[in-house]
């Protein structure tokens, strides 16, 4: 069930429209009378220097974020030869304390690596599909 809208109050639309048109004409005529070069408005005067730079930088961040957001996820990236190449995810971030990594591949499509984990001190063997 949709609730009923309350009745709109009676307004003199014709009178209001005529008043608005008159005001617009008056402002246009006043502008033409002043002539010459217009002084900078208060808002425009503030939009210079570091303020403009800040605004543009913020807009750039917003646009860049939007582009990244819309960009498809990259597990399958196009390769130069037209094949779809999957860079093995390499397990993500790599701890700089890991001195030596041995990589491996399996013809079933998985890849892996072996290393001594600096957090636990244990040899760790990872594999990913």
């Amino acid at each position: 069930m949709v609730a009923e809208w309350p009745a709109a109050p009676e307004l003199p639309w014709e009178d209001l429209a005529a008043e608005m048109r008159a005001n617009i004409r008056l402002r246009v005529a006043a502008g033409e009378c002043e002539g010459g070069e217009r002084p900078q408005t208060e808002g425009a005067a503030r939009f210079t220097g570091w303020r403009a730079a800040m605004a543009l930088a913020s807009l750039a961040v917003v646009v860049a974020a939007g582009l990244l957001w819309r960009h498809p996820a990259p597990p399958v990236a196009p390769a130069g030869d037209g094949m779809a190449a999957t860079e093995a995810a390499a397990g993500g971030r790599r701890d700089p304390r890991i001195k030596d990594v041995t990589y491996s591949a399996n013809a079933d499509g998985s890849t892996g690596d072996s290393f001594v984990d600096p957090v636990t001190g244990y040899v760790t063997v990872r594999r990913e599909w």
Partner: protein
Amino acid sequence: MESRAAIWWLAIGALGAAAGLAQETVLPSSAIRIDIPKDSPVALLTLDPRDSRYTARGGAILVDLDALLGMRNTGSNRIHGITLRVVSQEVAMGGKASVSIPRLNIAPGETFPVHIVQHLVRPASLGPGPLVEVSLDGVLFQDLSFYGPDRLHSRRDMIAWEMEAQRDRDYFKAILARSGRTGLQQAILREMDRPRLDRPTMLRTPAASSAALGAGERSERFAFVSFPDAPVEPVSGTAMVAGNQVRAPRIEVRNRGTVAVRHVEIGWLVKDPSGREYLAASVPSSQPDLQLAAGGTAAFAQDAAMKLSRNGQPLDIRGMTGFISQVELADGKVWVPSSRNLDETALRNVLPPSPEAIRLTELYRQGLDALIAELHKP
């Protein structure tokens, strides 16, 4: 007017900051589900999500898992290895992984950490629920008995690592006995200097499995290294090669033993223009339920295609060699090449270090005495 302008500046700044922050969000422990069966020989004590994060990007969620699990051996046997499945989704590539810790020695009642660092991808459309599920695939005990669902065949891998560990420890012990500290030092330095390739780039293409030659491709035949004591021998094999790309290996093997075989793995070596060889990949038998009877032959093929490089430079592949690297018999026994196999065929100078050799070289970095003390342990 002043206050209105200030509000605009604040709004623009907040939008920019929010957009930046939306790229990476801390992953709470509630987003990681740990599934350890109640009757298993290990129990989860703690879960620290550490620096785990996730990022929503397009229609996907990228998970950077960096979690530390505190576990306890609740069974009555010493634990020598554990494998965990780490899954964000199982449909597409990049959603499934495993983390294994071989060469553990955890007594009943002792605690031990498991550190999981893994990058995973998950479609955002999967909806609510944990972003990552970690489950037990298997636990290997000192007597090589096993517990777990073994969905990733971790039993076979962990037994093979145990056998390789015993083989490599015996090798270094023999050198220490024969050539003393200097000989051991030279051997461990050679171990650290084994030729290695970069992480291979796996290729996904409908043509990867095609038996037809693609543009610029050639069909290369495997040369085989044969071990007299291996239960299986390679018969013939080919793969497609183009520059630094290889794909579609097809290999035929024969069971020359008296026991049926349920898994075979071929080590796949590639040769560069200077004649130096590198281990490119392992080629497993493709049938998940292979039953290769005694005296029988079987051919298996894999669809993988990959690009190989070394130190960032494409590897120009000029030849290929194969050898039997692992066999699992129907009775559950696992065969790996012996020290003698490796020495007689010069494979010792080609194959990358085993997990145990990696552990021993790490100990050597702490000092030769630390390595010798480790080798003297039973």
